[in-house]
């Protein structure tokens, strides 16, 4: 798993690639919550297009970040869901709960 982070205007974009599982979801969680809660970025965008696997602890980290962003009135957005990522969110019945876009442009302007 690899996380990289870009800051564009008032948005932070996380590019995550590889597998998100119990070995690294704490790291993902920490990075996301830091950007949402501590840095209070108005828009946090998570690019999941290169995610090959995401387990329930990874989904839990996304849910926690979404709740934290709602608490402070910012936006937490998923973009470019890979097939496996979409499948797991569907299984979790969370596709309609998250704000999801196909492209980064939409995620930054939508």
């Amino acid at each position: 798993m690899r996380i990289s982070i870009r800051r564009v205007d008032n948005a932070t974009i996380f590019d995550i690639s590889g597998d998100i599982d119990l070995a690294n979801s704490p790291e993902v969680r920490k990075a996301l919550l830091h950007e949402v809660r501590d840095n209070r970025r108005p828009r946090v965008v998570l690019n999941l297009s290169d995610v090959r696997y995401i387990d329930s602890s990874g989904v839990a980290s996304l849910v926690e970040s979404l709740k934290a962003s709602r608490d402070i009135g910012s936006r937490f957005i998923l973009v470019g869901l890979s097939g496996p990522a979409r499948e797991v969110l569907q299984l979790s019945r969370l596709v309609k709960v998250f704000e999801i876009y196909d492209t980064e442009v939409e995620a930054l302007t939508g």
Partner: protein
Amino acid sequence: MSRDLLLKRGLLLKIELLSDPKALYVVRGAVERLAETVGFAAAECRSVVRAVDEALTNVMRHCYRGRPDQPIELYFRRPRRRSKGRLEKGLEVLLCHRGPAVDQAQLRGQKPGELRPGGLGLHFISEAMDAVDYERVGHTNRLRLVKYLPSEKGSSRGRRSERNADFHSARGQRHDF
């Protein structure tokens, strides 16, 4: 060498690991290919991988409480259920570990769709598998996960990969999967 279990029960494979989450990535690599070899289609392979991964994650978190040095064994074998005189085909995974007995009353996930972090693992497991049983044998906890192949009628064979062909049992008989 311990010939015992492997030979007695006609296993396909056995994996021993420690309760370090870094092992999950490795185990998923084997399970995905094993499910494919046994004849599951790609989406079914992903389900089996997810179920085994979530079951291991639960053992690491809830039974071994994050200690990364505890033993876990995974046995992969053919399911033993017979239906209408035929051996039903598919994959059975036996996950064995130590630690306190699993209190089945505690096995409560959440309804999917709720905005609460956590509680999805059991849902993923039951969604993926046809049978999920917990058992305590001596000091060992055993979780048995079984998934059957879609029964073979008409065109279903066409969905199966070329790797489906037969694994052999411990006694050298051929077992058609």
